[in-house]
């Protein structure tokens, strides 16, 4: 091997594959900057030609609240443009197969799953939705119910192909983002009968909000609910020491309210939101079933 080629090879070997200063969580992925650079370079034959959309964008705001899992993750290092885009196509395709209705934390739902061990090859669970988390194909929600005095929670992957049917029995919202505190509340607040009939909502009516305050049981708790700043729960009187400790913790959160950088990292720009939901909207035209059906009354 001549010296010239050797030096060339060495230079090639020294060429950094990942030139970002950001700590890369997954070492097997290329950084966004490099992908963008090669996408825009003239050498790229299959260059994307993104047409500017000029027509009216309808129902974007509504989509944001009904299908929040289409947006990229709020954790910045989980975002990946290509991965997110491919996942979105898969999600729309899945939505064309199964009707995933509009629901929120606080809605009463029933889920039917195919179960190879059950006698009817089916398993149905009814419960109150207490949590909704993650984005993309990993989106999941948790149902809670009390059966025979036993609190039970089941977490469902929303895009799991073994889900057969998702029904919303009562469409309702709560003031809190999650209702995990129901684990330490009286059982009557998380009890839902299995033979509950769906409560119809008038067509075009806004989603009702449950504003009653729920009392919390006395200590001990599973977590320190008093530091979570929930709005829909009344916390009993605590010892001075506990209150002092909570105040100390909450004080540490104060400077983070003014952290603009953290807000920026967590938020998703409006242009990106619009782009996401425009593509979803267009894709859902191709699959007419993909848009979520609202729970509407027949009479009104």
């Amino acid at each position, binding site marked *: 091997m001549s010296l010239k080629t050797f030096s060339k090879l060495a230079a090639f070997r020294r060429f950094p594959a990942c030139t970002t200063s950001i700590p890369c969580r997954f070492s097997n992925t290329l950084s966004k900057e490099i992908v963008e650079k090669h996408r825009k370079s003239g050498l790229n034959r299959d260059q994307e030609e993104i047409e500017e959309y000029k027509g009216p964008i309808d129902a974007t705001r509504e989509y944001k609240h009904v299908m929040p899992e289409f947006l990229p993750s709020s954790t910045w290092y989980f975002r990946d443009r290509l991965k997110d885009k491919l996942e979105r196509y898969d999600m729309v395709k899945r939505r064309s197969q199964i009707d995933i209705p509009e629901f929120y934390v606080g809605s009463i739902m029933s889920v039917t*799953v195919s179960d190879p061990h059950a006698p009817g090859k089916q398993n149905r669970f009814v419960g109150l939705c207490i949590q909704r988390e993650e984005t993309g194909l990993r989106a999941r929600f948790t149902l809670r119910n009390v059966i*025979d005095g*036993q609190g039970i929670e089941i*977490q469902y992957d929303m895009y*799991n192909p073994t889900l057969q049917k998702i029904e919303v029995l009562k469409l309702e919202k709560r003031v809190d983002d999650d209702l995990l505190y129901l684990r330490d509340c009286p059982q009557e607040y998380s009890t839902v009968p299995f033979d509950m009939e769906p409560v119809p909502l008038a067509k075009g009516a806004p989603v009702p909000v449950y504003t009653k305050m729920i009392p919390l049981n006395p*200590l001990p708790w599973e977590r320190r609910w008093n530091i979570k700043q929930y709005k829909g729960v009344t916390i009993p009187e605590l*010892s001075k020491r506990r209150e002092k400790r909570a105040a100390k913790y909450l004080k540490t959160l104060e400077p983070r309210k003014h952290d603009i950088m953290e807000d920026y990292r967590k938020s998703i720009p409006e242009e990106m939101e619009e782009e996401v939901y425009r593509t979803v909207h267009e894709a859902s035209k191709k699959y007419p079933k993909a848009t979520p059906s609202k729970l509407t009354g027949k009479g009104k």
Partner: protein
Amino acid sequence: MSGCLRSIADVTSHFNKLNLVATKFHSLAPNKSPKLLASKPPEGASNFSSTSASQHIMKLTRMRVVDNSALGKAAQVAGKPPRVIHVYKKTGIGHTGDKVLLAIRGQKTRGYIVGCKGKRHYPMKPRFDTNNVVLVDDNGNPLGTRIKVPIGSHLRANEGDFTKLLAIATKFV
């Protein structure tokens, strides 16, 4: 044993002496209430806290008996739920479907975990508010005739002695 008893007797006598002093002190200065007089713990028993509760099922974890066996009922009435003294597993951390050895009412009994809180939530499988256990004898036959709470449907895939528990289960979720 006798040494142990003697030491406990010592402690109680010492405590009585202290209490005597405290009562005397209280009679002298009734406004200042000494803490020693309080024989009961303060209300809301966990006013003090140590480390956070572990969600794992391991040795010395307290369990809830969910079958209708006399032994389980007696332990519940006495307010002394059984404790795990061994998990039949290499890792030593039990999960739903695992076999454990329990200390209950001064005797050793085997049992199967039929539901637990769990440190993490596995999707498509139920998570329970309590750590539930069903008692069995040495041959794997359940001591009770009925499981009073629902159990996970995925347990139906289990084979061997566990099928005896599935026979006495009332509900699956």
